């Protein structure tokens, strides 16, 4: 790949007071209002914001890919002097893929499932009339190699379903770069990827940008990522750009209160050593040699596929303590949660809850025990029945366990106060509430049965960072008050480090590391744990001193991922 002969520091893109209106009846008038920023050659601009901030819309507006019902109302988008909003569709088609490349968030659905990967890359060459003849195939293989994919000649003929998420994202990057565009727009490209894969892709983007000298507009919600790769940052809140500047300034000396709030909410390891109570009491939950295997196929004509979702896992939880189970997708962490609550059957092992082995009980025998183990789910939009009122959702549990309705109702109102929701929520439906509020309802539901063990299955993963901080605080308060044991399942080591007393790291179904956050972070013994920790974005920035993000962002810990 040649280095782009481009004027370094050339002003590639200037967005000037761009506004996009929302259709009538929406909760605000504009998706984005009066947004202005610049992008120069050779720099990475990160646009940060929570959901609904309008960051994606800005990116789509540049490419002219907004849906029909969103139209740019005013402002200019100047690409090398030309106003993109004034161009015809034909002129835009000539630009897309050639001068401006874009990659998206969901690699699993971003590629045509019935077309070979190589053909999809060749398509962008064909559409712009580049590399005719046999040179095209050559170029495709060159690109696949450039983005770090193994065995490019074979992979070019594969269909997307054979590739992993990280591999598909690399293919997307290859497609976006095929014609060496001046600008790359990346819309949350690593949000849907595992932490280790994310580190690799970030390293790749960094490397490419350095060698090709292009301008990169990187959209994300994660300040850790910003700390690792950005040169300049722009922060957006509810459609308005509230702060922008060099990354050092924005991250370490944020001016706008929203930015300050966001940065304060980034999960980091709390330095206060948790007061560990005397371990005299018997553990609340003791899991021994738990195993769960999934077998698929095995019919008369198909091969059996065996997946060890959980492989010989053993751990324990005390009352009043939080155990974190951390792992990437496919590690088995969610499966353990489901096994504990008997949402799936287990294959072998013991689960001793307060002395009783709940693994061997039948469904009917287990039902009376259910009130002691409750779960808080991940997706605030799917974990509440949209047709039931909040009151019904919370009282259903006690009523199903024999509590008279009047009593359950009183308890429900109490709980609404406990989770800091207004009592009037009792008669309202879930769609009237935000994600964070719905999670609070989910917590109230779980507490209605007065459990002794709570399993929080990625309960804050779907929430914005600021809301996440509030919910974590709520959970902490509840644990202190009610002395419940908690199992916190998450993929985010930072969150686990912040709230857990002990951490268990899982990889491909096995537990590879156990210990306090301090032990796991400072003295990880397992190679996978070390990789996981190294891949956490923004560590350099966060770990210099607690609560005071560090200064240097030049020496990126991603060095080992840059190939």
């Amino acid at each position: 790949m040649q280095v782009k002969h481009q004027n370094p520091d050339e002003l590639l893109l200037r967005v000037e007071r761009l506004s996009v209106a929302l259709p009538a009846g929406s909760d605000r008038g504009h998706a984005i209002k009066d947004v202005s920023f610049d992008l120069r050659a050779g720099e990475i601009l990160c646009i940060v914001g929570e959901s609904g901030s309008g960051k994606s819309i800005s990116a789509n507006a540049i490419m002219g890919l907004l849906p029909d019902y969103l139209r740019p109302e005013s402002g200019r988008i100047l690409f090398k002097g030309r106003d993109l909003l004034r161009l015809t569709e034909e002129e835009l088609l000539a630009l897309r893929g050639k001068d401006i490349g874009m990659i998206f968030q969901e690699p699993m659905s971003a590629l045509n499932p019935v077309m070979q990967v190589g053909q999809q890359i060749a398509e962008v060459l064909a559409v712009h009339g580049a590399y005719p003849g046999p040179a095209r195939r050559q170029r495709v293989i060159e690109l696949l190699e450039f983005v770090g994919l193994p065995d490019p000649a074979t992979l070019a003929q594969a269909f997307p379903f054979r590739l992993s998420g990280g591999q598909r994202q690399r293919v997307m990057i290859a497609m976006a770069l095929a014609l060496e565009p001046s600008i790359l727009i990346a819309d949350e490209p690593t949000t849907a990827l595992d932490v280790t894969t994310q580190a690799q892709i970030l390293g790749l983007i960094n490397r490419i940008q350095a060698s090709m000298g292009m301008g990169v507009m990187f959209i994300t919600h994660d300040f850790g990522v910003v700390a690792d790769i950005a040169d300049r940052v722009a922060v957006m809140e509810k459609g308005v750009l509230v702060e922008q500047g060099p990354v050092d300034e924005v991250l370490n000396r944020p001016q706008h209160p929203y930015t300050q709030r966001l940065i304060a909410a980034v999960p980091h390891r709390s330095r206060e050593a948790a007061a560990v109570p005397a371990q005299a009491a018997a553990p609340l939950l003791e899991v021994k040699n738990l195993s769960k295997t999934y077998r698929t196929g095995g019919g008369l004509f198909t091969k059996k596929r065996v997946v060890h979702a959980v492989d010989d896992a053993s751990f324990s939880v005390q009352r009043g303590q939080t155990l974190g189970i951390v792992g990437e997708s496919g590690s088995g962490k969610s499966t353990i949660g489901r096994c504990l609550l008997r949402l799936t059957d287990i294959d072998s092992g013991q689960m001793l809850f307060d002395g009783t082995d709940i693994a061997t009980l039948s469904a009917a025998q287990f039902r009376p025990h259910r009130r002691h183990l409750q779960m808080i789910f991940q997706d605030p939009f799917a974990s509440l029945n949209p047709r039931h009122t909040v009151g019904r959702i919370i009282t259903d549990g006690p009523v199903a366990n024999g509590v008279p309705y009047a009593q359950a109702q009183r308890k429900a109102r109490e709980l609404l106060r406990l989770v800091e929701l207004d009592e009037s929520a009792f008669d309202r439906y879930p769609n009237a509430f935000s994600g964070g509020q719905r999670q609070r309802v989910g917590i109230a539901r779980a507490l209605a049965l007065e459990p002794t063990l709570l399993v929080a299955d990625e309960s804050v993963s779907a929430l914005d960072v600021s809301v996440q901080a509030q919910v974590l605080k709520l959970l902490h308060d509840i644990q202190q008050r009610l002395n419940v044991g908690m199992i916190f399942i998450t993929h985010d080591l930072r969150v686990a480090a912040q709230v857990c007393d002990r951490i268990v790291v899982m990889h491909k179904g096995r537990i590879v590391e156990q210990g306090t956050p301090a032990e796991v972070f400072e003295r990880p013994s397992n190679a996978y744990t070390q990789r996981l920790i190294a891949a956490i974005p923004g560590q350099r920035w966060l770990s210099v001193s607690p609560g005071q993000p560090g200064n240097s962002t030049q020496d990126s810990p991603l060095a080992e991922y840059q190939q």
Partner: protein
Amino acid sequence: MKKFIRRFMANRGAVAGLAIFILVIVLALTCSFWFESPWTMLGQPLLPPLQDPDFPLGTDMLGRDIAAGLAYGARVSLLVGVVSTLAAVVFGILVGSLAGFYGGRVDDVLMRFTEFFQTIPQLAMAVVLVAIFNPSIYSIVGAIAIVSWPPVARLVRSEFLSLKQREFVQAAIVIGQTPSRIIVTQILPNAMPPIIVTASLMIATAILTEASLSFLGLGDRNMMSWGFMIGAARTMLREAPLMSVMPGVAILLAVLAINLIGEGLNDAMNPQLRKRGE
């Protein structure tokens, strides 16, 4: 609920369909008030429409009032359409919910059973059933119900399969609700919208099937049906083409109206515009 009604009313086609359908219902309910029995052969045979005020739509070759036939035919069509669909939907929900909720062996067995009924050509089976059990309103309703339930079962099953994985159903299990309570209070209410849309469209198909059966001579001999009228008019294609046209238009309007209502229901239940964050 109010929003749903508002969305439905905004759809002009659906409103038109609803108006026509209500007209058909009124006609069916009050036909004995306007007309005597459609079988009475009082009039002059083959009277063209709009000539005699006593017979506004004319008479057929045996002197029967065509307008009366259309009115009484509405009664049969609606009766057969609604009752057979109701039976098919109830049975389909039963099979589909059990298959979707319990999965495994139960699902396998029930699905093989359903696939069998779905693969057999529907009209042919209905014909055979009605023929063998002697044509009557009961055998017709039964036969149509028997050939119509498989798509409902498949739909209910797929809804149950996907809803069962949703977290609020998992939550219901976790808080200790019994399976039957979960099926009825948690899953079924959320599965109803597509079931309702399918059921409404099935009424239309049932009316068409009933018409086809009557046309082939398998209708209830005591009940005048639109299909029967078309069948009877077949011999007079050259002499009196309108005799075949009018009952067909009646069927067309009724079926069209129901389809428009069904599409209106579908659109009202799934608003196309998706706002951010939802």
